[in-house]
Structure formats: structure tokens, C-alpha cells
């Protein structure tokens, strides 16, 4: 009996109960959410998944594999050279995440409303983001320089 159920359904009955409980609760909330703007909500919900899975993720993956490609084309890193790819990747990723989170302020999507509501201006945000980006790349360069120096020293020393 159990075996037949699992063969047809594809999982343990507990899986089915969990799914049904979850989907029913989601449905209950959806009945309250959707009437507010059926098309808009659907576009937002499904759009949210698409925007991440089919736009953002492929976009940063392509950028990253481009970097890795360029890095590999320069040949395997020879000592005393340290692999530099992550000294580029890390500040780039951090700067991108900050832009992603604070794009409405940095790119002034709602500058007027912000100003009227808070009595402040969105003007500083782009400047701040650029300075922070500069600091991130600067720190990374510093880290890379230290790393290079250390590996060069290690290389110079006879191993033992």
C-alpha cells in the first residue's frame, strides 16, 4: 500500500501532507494579497523569481566567468605571483551588492519624495558609493601588495 503510494506520488506521504499544509496557508494569504492588484502582484511575485534566477544570477555569472577566463589566459600564476583574481572579485562583488541594495538612493529613483519626506537630499549617496567602492578596491590592492611581497620573500627563501 505504502509502496504503491510512493511509486505513484514520488515521495513519502508526510511530504504530501507538508506540501498541502504549506500551499493551503500560502493560498489563504494569497486570497488577501491578490485582490489588491491581481496583475501587479502576479507580475511582482513571478517577476521577482525571474529577475533573480534568469537575470541577476546569469548576469553576474557571465561577468565572473569573463574575469576567470581573462585570468586563466594569462597563464597559470607563477610564483612569486599570488593569484590576483579574488582581489578583483571581492571588491567588485561588495560594491555591486551595495549598489543593488541602495540603488534607489544612489541612482535617485525617488529623490524628490525622499527630499520632501525627510528634508534631506539624495545627492550624497552616489558620491558615498563611489568613495566606498574606491576604498574597497584600495584595500584590496593593499592586501594584494602585502600578499605579493610575502610570497616573493617565501620564494626567495630556500624551502625547508
Amino acid at each position: 500500500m505504502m509502496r504503491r503510494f510512493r511509486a505513484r506520488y514520488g515521495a513519502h506521504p508526510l511530504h504530501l501532507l507538508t506540501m498541502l499544509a504549506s500551499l493551503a496557508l500560502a493560498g489563504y494569504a494569497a486570497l488577501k494579497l491578490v485582490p489588491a492588484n491581481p496583475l501587479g502582484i502576479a507580475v511582482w511575485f513571478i517577476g521577482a523569481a525571474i529577475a533573480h534566477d534568469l537575470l541577476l544570477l546569469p548576469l553576474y555569472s557571465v561577468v565572473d566567468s569573463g574575469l576567470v577566463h581573462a585570468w586563466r589566459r594569462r597563464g597559470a600564476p607563477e610564483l612569486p605571483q599570488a593569484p590576483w583574481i579574488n582581489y578583483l572579485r571581492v571588491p567588485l562583488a561588495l560594491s555591486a551588492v551595495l549598489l543593488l541594495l541602495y540603488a534607489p538612493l544612489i541612482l535617485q529613483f525617488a529623490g524628490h519624495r525622499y527630499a520632501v519626506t525627510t528634508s534631506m537630499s539624495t545627492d550624497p549617496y552616489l558620491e558615498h558609493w563611489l568613495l566606498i567602492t574606491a576604498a574597497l578596491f584600495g584595500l584590496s590592492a593593499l592586501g594584494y601588495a602585502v600578499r605579493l611581497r610575502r610570497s616573493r620573500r617565501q620564494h626567495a627563501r630556500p624551502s625547508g
Partner: protein
Amino acid sequence: MTDQQDHAPPTDAARPRSPRWVRWIGEHPPPGPTRRGFWRSPIRGPWLTAVFGLVLLIGITIVFVTGLLSYAAYNPDLGSNDLTPDKGLLGFYLFHWPTQPYWLYRFTQGVHVTLGLILVPVLLGKLWSVIPKLFDWPPVRSPAQFLERISLLLLVGGAVFEFVTGIVNIQYWYVFPASFYTVHLYGAWIFIAAFAAHVALKSRRMVTALRSRSFRDELHTDTAHTRPEPPDPDDLVSPNPAAPTISRRGALGLVGAGSLTVLLLTVGQSIGGALRPTALLAPRGQTLGHGPNDFQINKTAEEAAISTAETDGWQLELRGGGTSMTLTRDDLLAMPQHTAHLPIACVEGWSTRNQAWTGVQLRDLARLAGAPEPGSVLVESIQTGGLFRSATLRRNQVLDPDSLLALRVNDADLSLDHGYPARVIVPNNPGVHNTKWVGRLDFQA
């Protein structure tokens, strides 16, 4: 249960019944991401996914609970406070919001917003780590898998929906498909329904994966010594791994550095004081000045369409116990004055340090209105529009000795932006319920 259900047998058992062409399609994924060899990262695997999963399990639970508390803080059962009145059973947990500790809402809402922001890098890492599952081939293998994929759409769509609506709301970019309160509250329940099921189905797998490797050893493994995890039943591990360019330690470090950077550039807007300017990218990281009224303004007088034309000749109307009376600002100043040190704490997560508010205790005004033991008070602003032109406060909020109709702040008259001629300030109250430019107090039994 999950171990059994996630292994191949169910589909294999079902397979003999499916037509040959269905089987053929299942065995021949089209070129591209549906082919397992397409995904080549050598660090993708159950252990890495489980680490991100554990952080999100704890973090999202805290964000959800603090979100529920924020709804309770609005006392939605009173008057027209409720911005989502058709909540039905989703309001099952609501309770009378206390006035003490006075900093509670400042803390919980600061955590809600700040933690939500710093979880974004973790969420991105988690979604990256499981992306091959989106392109599972064949797309539908069994009824179980079909249901689970619908649930995962709600999980991923819901997560991105909740994070994005919250993040754009605190930056005043109101692009939601409906009221922020509607989309963020009901969206949260859709998301959490899928989240809870995901936790139920995957927690054992998470624990198994976490135990499969030593965290300490991973922290001591550099890129050169990074090897893929052994093949896993979920097919996260690449069958065709590229040479590593970053270690698992490096990937965790990258995500951690992302979260730390966001934290450092945000938290100052909730701590305030000298740390406020460190919130270089947060909406409330700017300092207004050093005068008595130069702390963050929730909504300016300009936004509320209040000018001195509206406040000239201002009088407070006091109702309760069937009577009505009016008081001028001088009348109020002649009453016993009380000073309370309280913050402004906004639903957007920012807050100020304690300000010294001076004015008349609400309980004194209740007594004067002939309603010394009111059940609630309806506070109305003289502003003519706006979602929060009025708010209803509960008895405990009226009777708290630190609940004031404030006339002055930090030894100066209130500025117009902070609610001159008079505003409400109640301990542990969300910012928007501390009504500014108060025109009428209606004490109700």
C-alpha cells in the same frame, strides 16, 4: 523521511509506467543549463548550501518574528489603525502592545530592517548554491516533485518579493503593486508558508550536510587544496568541476564580508548619535545639525501640507465623557509639565537617541476631558490627508506617565517639522503613531 523521499527510487518506481517518449525526453536534456555538466563550480555542494541555509534559517526566523511584532505595535484592533483589516486568522497572535520597555520597538524594528539587509548577501549565496536545481531535467518527474517545485517558486519568489519590497520602501521608492503594508504582510505569510515547508523537508539533509565536513578544516583549506564535495543525491556537486578559483572558505568569507559591509554602512542610522554618519548609504545616515530640533524627521511639515498658516491661532479640541472643550497652547503650557526621555523609532528601521520631550501628560488631559479611565484615545492631526493623520492609542498608552502631548523638545519649542504646536509622544510607540500637529484628542470609554 527526507532521505528516503529525495533518493531516486520513487521516480524509478514510477518510470515503467511512463511512455517511452517521456523517458527519452527525460534522458536527453537540451544543451545548456539543464545538462548537469553545464554547472562547473567545484565548490558548489550540499555542505556550502547547508551553511548558507543554517544562517538563513536563524536570520529569516528573526526577521519574520520581528515583522509580526511590528504589526502588533500598530495596535491594529483599535479604531482605524489596521492597514490590513482583512487579515483574518493571520492576526491570531496580536496582543496589546506594551509601553515598556520604552526602547523595545526601536530594538525590534532596527533588528528587522538591519538584519534583513545584511541577510541579502547570504540569500544571494544560497540561491547561487542551488541554482542547478532550477534547471532540473526532466522538469517534472513525479507529483511530489511538481508540488515541491510550485512551493519553491513561492519560496524564491516570496523571498525576493519580501526583501525587495522592504528594501525599496525604506528608500521611499513606492513602486509596489498595492499598499506597502498589504504586500509586505501578506507576502510574508506566503513566503513563510513555503519557508516552513522547505525547512521541514530539508532540515535533516542540512544537518547531514553540515556534519559531512568539519567547519574548522574548511576554514584552514585554501584554494589550492580545495576539492569538490563527494557526489550528492541532489546533484548539486558538479560532475565536471573546473579548477577552483576560490576556496569554500573564500566563498563564505566573501558572503560574510558582504554582510559585514552592509551592517557597518547601515547600523548607524538605528544607533544614532556620533555613529549616524557612519551609515553612509542608509536612508537616515545624514546628520541634520546640532540644534534641539535637529534630529531625524519622520515626515516633514511640507509633506503633510502644514505651514504656519495652519498652525496660527491653533487650538486643541478635547473630547471625552460627552463634553468638548478647547485649549490654547498657553493653556497647555500653564498645566503641569512633565519631561520624558524617549526616542523616535520608525517602521523603516531607523531611530533617534532619546530626546527630552516636555509637555502635558495624556492622563492629565483625559482627566480634564472628563474621562479619567479611558479605554482609548483617538488622536487626530490638523493635516488633511495622509495615511497617518490619525491614530488610536490604547488605555495603557494613555495612562503611562511618560505619554505626553509634547510642546517642547530638548528645552526648545517643537519645530514645525517635529509637530509644532503639539505632538503626541508615547513610549515604545512606532514613529507614525506619535501623531504630529495634533488638533483633537477624543477619549473614548
